[in-house]
């Protein structure tokens, strides 16, 4: 009996490995082709696929960097500004809101909490039309600000921060700091924020990535070329007369859009994967 169980487990282990290897291959294969093709010249690419990289990496990179019609590096800079600012204000204000609802008692507390929970997964697309009209009225059309400021209200980040506070901030600490004569804002900035650092780091990564990849709203808001973020540039590339382009350059453009996130991910993968589940349902 014992031997039989071990045997079946052995078979299952083998099957599990085969499936995992196939899936990993699927996940990595397309990026592998991307990287290889970004190192080859247009004429090489026309001849067909080769598994080995070519020597055109730097040349393709320079031709992307010097292209005026698709200002990729300006786009990356814009994306960095938008994503960086969004991540910063989104995590700061979500922590502030979470702390406000966690540490204080007030009349509307329960209603406020219920309200945020109710809009937790509301898609932003349903208000896009009014949003577009509003920012046009406010004179913020075709600027980066409307992509940054609304991230102050991020219900899912709030929920994550709230759960984190519940598990790691004893209210006695807040009391102690009050007794020491620390003001409320100072308590938040000097005592609560440092405690929340791990949660803030995880959520900063996620909101950065979310903002970096966001396409729907920026595509509606941004018009001029020098303000475009990376996803809009990719979309413009798709809409352009594609066949007349240098293919090596196209692969390189896709690569510069994807690779920064991959590098960040590989460096921080441990925290990111641990952070995925924390924002989910309570068990």
């Amino acid at each position, binding site marked *: 009996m014992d031997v039989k169980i071990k045997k*079946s487990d052995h078979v*299952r*282990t083998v099957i*599990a490995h085969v*499936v*995992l290897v196939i*899936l*990993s291959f*699927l*996940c*990595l294969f*397309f990026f592998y082709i991307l990287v290889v093709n970004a190192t080859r010249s247009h004429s090489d690419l026309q001849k067909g696929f080769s598994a080995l990289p070519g020597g055109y990496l730097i040349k393709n990179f320079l031709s992307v960097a010097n292209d005026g019609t698709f200002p990729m590096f300006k786009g990356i800079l814009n994306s960095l500004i938008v994503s960086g600012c969004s991540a910063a204000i989104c995590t700061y*204000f*979500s922590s*502030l*809101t979470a702390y*406000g*609802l966690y540490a*204080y*008692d*007030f009349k509307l*507390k329960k209603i*406020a909490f219920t309200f945020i*929970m*109710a809009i*937790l*997964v*509301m898609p*932003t*697309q349903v*208000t*896009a*039309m009014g*949003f*577009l009209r*509003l920012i046009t009225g406010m004179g913020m059309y075709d600027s980066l600000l*409307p992509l940054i*400021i*609304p991230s102050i*209200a991020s219900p899912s980040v*709030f929920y994550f921060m709230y759960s984190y506070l519940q598990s790691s901030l004893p209210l006695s600490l807040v009391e102690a700091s009050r007794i020491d004569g620390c003001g409320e804002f100072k308590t938040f900035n000097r005592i609560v924020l440092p405690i929340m650092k791990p949660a803030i780091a995880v959520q900063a990564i996620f909101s950065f990535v979310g903002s970096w*990849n966001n*396409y*729907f709203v920026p595509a509606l808001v941004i018009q001029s070329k020098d303000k475009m973020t*990376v*996803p809009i540039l*990719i*979309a413009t*590339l*798709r*809409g352009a007369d594609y066949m007349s382009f240098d293919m090596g350059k196209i692969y390189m453009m*896709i690569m510069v859009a994807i690779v920064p996130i*991959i590098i960040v991910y590989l460096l921080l*993968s*441990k925290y990111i*994967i641990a952070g*995925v589940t924390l924002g*989910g*349902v309570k*068990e």
Partner: protein
Amino acid sequence: MKPKRKSISYSKWGYIFILPFFISFFIFSFIPLADTVRYSFYEFYRSGIKEIGPNFIGLENYKSLLQSDMLKYAGNTFILWIIGFIPQIVIALLLASWFVDIRLKIRGKQFFKVVIYLPNLIMASAFAMLFFTLFSTNGPINSIFMSIGIIKKPIDFMGTVFGTRSLIGLMNFLMWFGNTTIMLMAAIMGISTDIFEASEIDGCNSIQRFFKITLPLIRPILAYTLITAIIGGLQMFDVPQILTNGQGTPDRTSMTLIMFLNSHLKSRNYGMAGALSVYLFIVSAILCFIVYRITNNNDPDGSKAAARKSKRARRG
């Protein structure tokens, strides 16, 4: 000595701290929502450079949307979602139960987790652009297939309904199965090991264990995953938009609801866009309500409901 001190009220600070969130929500979500709902009752569009409206027309926009291709696009959205979601949830359940099964000696678990989660962080639009170039008729995938000898002529993946939909499904699958796996893994790890050990002593095999113990116990998280996936599917935009250049080719069979909304917004057809948004809002409000019920459930494992049921059964 100073009895007043005790009654210092800190409640004003609570309001101050949550104020930025609610102001921002009010300005950037609530006013736009009200505006959207309002104009959904108006004839308001732009033809050429002339702006027509706003003239109040009641429910006309809603009616004409129902007569337009909206329902077809809703069907498309559903099909595109389901062909990505079914493999996603099956594979995720399988991987999650393998990853937590201590009797399987899986090597490089961390490596596999990192790799399968990777596509989730990739920019969807760049990923779609990549697929567009890779699967084009003279792209590398066709060239690989031809050199192996599977096919003689290049396949026009994006020329057929089946090809386009499969590609979109494949992309959605690749982007989301890792995320779901990790979510479900955490859920399964939350189950007490005693239950698994007891089942083993009772002679439960791995398939029985999966269907009789693991699945029922992770039901709340499974439901959460399903509903959030439906909401995600409803918002499907980047991948089909970039892959088909906003056209939903061939013959608008891969046009999703949000792509439809986007085209109305781009052409400044505010009345129609408003009505479509309201339809989407109603559907997502229902889904939000379900998520709210799941996340705020005080009976997460269904044990109370089961107890009530058995009580009734005993009485009856």
